[in-house]
């Protein structure tokens, strides 16, 4: 019999115990009768010999080891009965806790998905390790290093190699660039993954470069692009303009070893050289070059090898590699780079920078929801204390009857934990809903970097919620329980419901809790306010260009195998086609989209003076077609635009931004004076150009730097500086979306296998720039308001309670001629005192907290007085309302009734 078995057969067990002892007593009695005792005497002797039968029973129960559980069950039953008697109270408490715990569960679920969850689908993910050099910000091994590490180590059962790259998937009108991975043939074996159809890679596909054009498709990619066609295995698809045979479909749910990036297809790493089209790519083998540290490695630990043992063993090999063949100094960004090998178990997001972002936002969100939970706890503690005051008599009776204080505390705690558990269950549903909502805020990374995150709850989330509920129950229940079980029995028994009034302290626990609530919600709301101000600033900011009505589309002609001549021809022809589309005003080409993911900068020096190398100015290097400025909406201040006359054969020309002009030639007053001056652009072979125009400054630099002042920028003609990676921008008459399919058709008409990338309005690219502020404002805003609602309920609760205790006093005052106004003033004043103290503490708290947010804010300082003042006024307003309602009720008191009732 197990203990729970006993627990649930408690009644049966009690009956059996009773029966056993009775049997004993009966036998003993009849023995004694046989010895000549009278029946009465025999019975007495038998009982005496056994000892008090209740005592024996109690000892037997204790021996069974389930006594505490039985008591717990009894407490739970008492608790449930209490809740049934006070449904209103119970509902408010449970709802409050559901909000507090639900918010925490939601964030934990998110953190779990972002940072803790092991790789899905793979076999025994605990044995898998990622090998990283240095700080793990990216892939860091070369193929020869990988081969040595794989061969020489004795701690891994096997080691696989991977690297990711955008791959152009030719599919007529549905051509696209997808994220592909090039992997060693043992990749799926190391992960312990069996394809759902077809096969994984074979050992011979890992030997000869370029010999086996085969591909394994991601399951969801196969579903969405090929309609789950099972006959697909054995057919070919076009990748980077080359035919590959599909050999297998990966199992459903597997998106590669680096979530949240979703890999759409896998090809053998031996195909790597033939996937690349850079000039001369075929001359040097990417697999034979120790300088080419583009690879990551994932291995499986042997049985009984710990991760630190494996790390030590692999680091030894790594050090031998580094010593026998040190990387050339120019290979290192910093000679002191940490190049030691580290082993990390893959959990959650493994992509260095994104993981860091996730850690930062998790901390922020975690602190926020914990604050909400604290406010909720304070609220519930307050309600419980108010109720405990009403239960004093019950408690006193039990104490008088000999219950120990500990036993009473335990019972009260059982009740509060029970409340917390019910609240947590409701909170789970709430959390699920919150997370669905939060997913709307996932970062809008442009494809092929699909951001996938599974926020469905796993066992860890449930365990977390359960433990949190118990902790919460103890936290909010302990103080009221200690207070309620205070053994001053007499006054309570004498039914002095005002037992507390002789020593109403102004700063009692209840008031302290209200102050805490006000302070915490104020701090949350101030943070929200700062994010909202940031957002407003972002909307008002003068970008220097006009993203509305502009459609953008990017191409990577290199993936498609275009040489420069073919690429130039393509850009020229597609621009002609786009400009002739109805609804298009102008179209142009650029190597960099403003506020995109990429930014190039290059040194620019004036030719008319000497500039020491350290003082060189670095400017954004943007190469654009004619009519670029018109299309993007950046005014040309002086000079002329690039024209068809600026060709590869004509003299090199450039347009500089206003800021660059002033930085290069500080003496000029009017930007026009820069016209005709000459400058040199570039690092190794600087090109001499004549300045033919000056453009207005524009915030075109990298996506998350909206707050930075525009960088100096040099614009050069696309014709004189061809780039295989470029974007087209099209200014339209109306909604740029209406032109998307027309653009797709024009591209497919020129090359049906060429995928247009990120075909979307430019405004969406720009919106990425304010993503963190938007998300921060939304998350903090929701939770801040939640906190304020809870705090308002708290103030309301305390004031109502206070009014109900002072009914008699109020009645007396009114009987003596106090006006309604005076009574309201009296009550509101009391509540306001608490609110003001809370507000002062809250402001100080906010000052400490918002400093941590400073990196996420722009256009507003972390101590913005307007935000602080506004939020304080708002909170005080809510508090006045929360005080006014009970105060008005107080004035409805009939003086006669109030004076009589006690």
């Amino acid at each position: 019999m197990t203990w729970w078995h006993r627990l649930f057969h408690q009644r049966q067990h009690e009956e059996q115990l009773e029966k056993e002892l009775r049997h004993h007593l009966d036998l003993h009695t009849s023995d004694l009768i046989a010895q000549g005792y009278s029946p009465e005497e025999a019975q007495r002797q038998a009982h005496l010999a056994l000892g008090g039968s209740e005592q024996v029973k109690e000892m037997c129960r204790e021996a069974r080891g389930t006594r505490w559980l039985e008591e717990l069950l009894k407490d739970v039953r008492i608790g449930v009965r209490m809740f049934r008697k006070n449904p209103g109270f119970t509902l408010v408490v449970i709802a409050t806790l559901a909000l507090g715990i639900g918010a925490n569960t939601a964030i934990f679920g998110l953190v779990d998905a972002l940072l803790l969850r092991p790789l899905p689908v793979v076999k025994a993910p605990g044995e898998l390790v990622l090998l990283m050099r240095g700080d793990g910000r990216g892939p860091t091994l070369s193929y020869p290093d990988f081969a040595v590490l794989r061969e020489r180590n004795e701690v891994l059962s096997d080691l696989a190699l991977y690297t990711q790259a955008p791959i152009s998937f030719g599919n007529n009108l549905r051509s696209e660039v997808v994220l592909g991975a090039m992997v060693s043939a043992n990749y799926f074996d190391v992960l312990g993954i069996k394809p759902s159809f077809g096969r994984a890679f074979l050992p011979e596909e890992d030997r000869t470069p370029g010999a086996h054009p085969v591909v394994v498709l991601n399951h969801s990619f196969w579903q969405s692009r090929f309609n789950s066609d099972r006959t697909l295995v054995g057919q070919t698809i076009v990748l980077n303009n080359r035919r590959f045979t599909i050999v297998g479909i990966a199992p459903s749910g597997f998106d590669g070893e680096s979530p949240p990036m979703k890999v759409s297809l896998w090809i053998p790493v031996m195909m790597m050289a033939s996937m690349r089209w850079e000039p001369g790519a075929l001359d040097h083998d990417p697999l034979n070059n120790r300088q080419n540290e583009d690879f990551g490695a994932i291995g499986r630990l042997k049985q009984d090898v710990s991760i630190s043992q494996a790390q030590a063993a692999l680091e030894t090999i790594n050090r031998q590699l580094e010593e026998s063949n040190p990387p050339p100094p120019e290979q290192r960004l910093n000679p002191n780079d940490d190049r030691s090998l580290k082993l990390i178990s893959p959990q959650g997001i493994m992509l260095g920078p994104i993981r860091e972002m996730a850690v930062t936002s998790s901390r922020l969100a975690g602190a926020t929801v914990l604050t909400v939970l604290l406010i909720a706890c304070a609220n519930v503690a307050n309600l419980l204390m108010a109720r405990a005051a009403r239960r004093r008599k019950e408690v006193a009776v039990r104490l008088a009857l000999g219950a120990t204080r500990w036993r009473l505390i335990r019972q009260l705690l059982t009740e509060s934990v029970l409340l917390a558990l019910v609240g947590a269950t409701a909170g789970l549903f709430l959390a699920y809903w919150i997370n669905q909502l939060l997913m709307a805020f996932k970062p809008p990374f442009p494809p092929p970097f699909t951001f996938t995150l599974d926020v469905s709850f796993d066992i860890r989330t449930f365990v977390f919620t359960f433990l949190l509920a118990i902790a919460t129950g103890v936290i909010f229940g302990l103080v009221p329980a200690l207070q309620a079980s205070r053994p001053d029995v007499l006054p309570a028994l004498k039914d002095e419901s005002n037992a507390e009034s002789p020593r109403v302290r102004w700063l009692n626990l209840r008031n302290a809790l209200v102050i805490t609530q006000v302070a915490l919600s104020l701090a949350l709301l101030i943070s929200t306010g700062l994010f909202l101000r940031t957002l407003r600033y972002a909307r008002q900011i003068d970008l220097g260009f006009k993203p509305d009505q502009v459609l953008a589309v990017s191409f990577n002609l290199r993936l498609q195998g275009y040489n420069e001549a073919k690429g130039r021809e393509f850009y020229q022809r597609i621009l002609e086609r786009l400009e002739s589309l109805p609804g298009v005003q102008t179209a142009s080409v650029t190597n960099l989209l403003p506020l995109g993911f990429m930014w190039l900068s290059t040194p620019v020096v004036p030719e008319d003076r000497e500039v020491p190398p350290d003082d060189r100015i670095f400017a954004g290097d943007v190469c654009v077609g004619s009519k670029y400025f018109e299309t993007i909406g950046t005014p040309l201040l002086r000079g002329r635009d690039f024209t068809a006359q600026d060709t590869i054969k004509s003299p090199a020309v450039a347009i500089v931004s206003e800021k660059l002009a002033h930085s290069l030639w500080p003496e000029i007053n009017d930007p026009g004076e820069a016209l005709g001056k000459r400058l040199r652009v570039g690092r190794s072979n600087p090109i001499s150009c004549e300045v033919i125009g000056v453009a207005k400054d524009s915030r075109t630099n990298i996506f998350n730097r909206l707050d930075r002042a525009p960088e100096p920028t040099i614009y050069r003609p696309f014709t004189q500086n061809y780039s295989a990676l470029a974007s087209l921008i099209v200014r339209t008459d109306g909604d740029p979306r209406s032109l998307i399919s027309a653009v797709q058709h024009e591209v497919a008409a020129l090359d049906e296998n060429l995928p247009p990338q990120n075909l979307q309005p430019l405004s969406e690219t720009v919106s990425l720039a304010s993503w963190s502020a938007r998300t921060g404002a939304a998350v903090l805003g929701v939770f801040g308001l939640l906190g304020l609602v809870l705090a308002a309920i708290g103030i309301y609760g305390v004031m109502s309670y206070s009014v109900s205790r002072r009914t008699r006093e109020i009645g007396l005052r009114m009987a003596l001629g106090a006006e309604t106004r005076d009574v309201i003033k009296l009550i509101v004043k009391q509540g306001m005192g608490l609110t003001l103290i809370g507000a002062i503490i809250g402001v100080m708290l906010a000052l400490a907290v918002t400093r941590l947010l400073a990196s996420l804010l722009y256009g507003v300082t972390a101590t913005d007085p307007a935000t602080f003042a506004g939020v304080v006024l708002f909170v005080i307003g809510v508090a006045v309302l929360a005080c006014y309602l009970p105060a008005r009720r107080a004035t409805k008191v009939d003086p006669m009734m109030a004076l009589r009732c006690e």
Partner: protein
Amino acid sequence: MKPKSDLPQGTLDLLILKVVALGPIHGYAIAQRLEQVSRGVVQVPQGSLYPALHRLENRGLLAAGWKVTETGREAKFYRVTRKGQAQLETETAGWQRLTQAVSLILKMSEGGA
């Protein structure tokens, strides 16, 4: 009446195991058997017999079931489990070693000095 000895600490469990090991037996019979076999020297406090039985059952050394006795009443009969048997053997051996050592020491002090 002869003076009765209190049981040394921890020996009650051993004695109960030994008695029950002889065959399934109910609580009252255990108390009687213990008293008979020890010729009245060992007085089992009946009040601690049942908690001890429940404790042993809880630890899995004894198993219990309800059976009808010869007098036609239902009684809870205990028997020794395999684990209990093993426990009995180790404890018996330990007890014997201890008593031998104790009696050796006692004899030595009688004959010595």
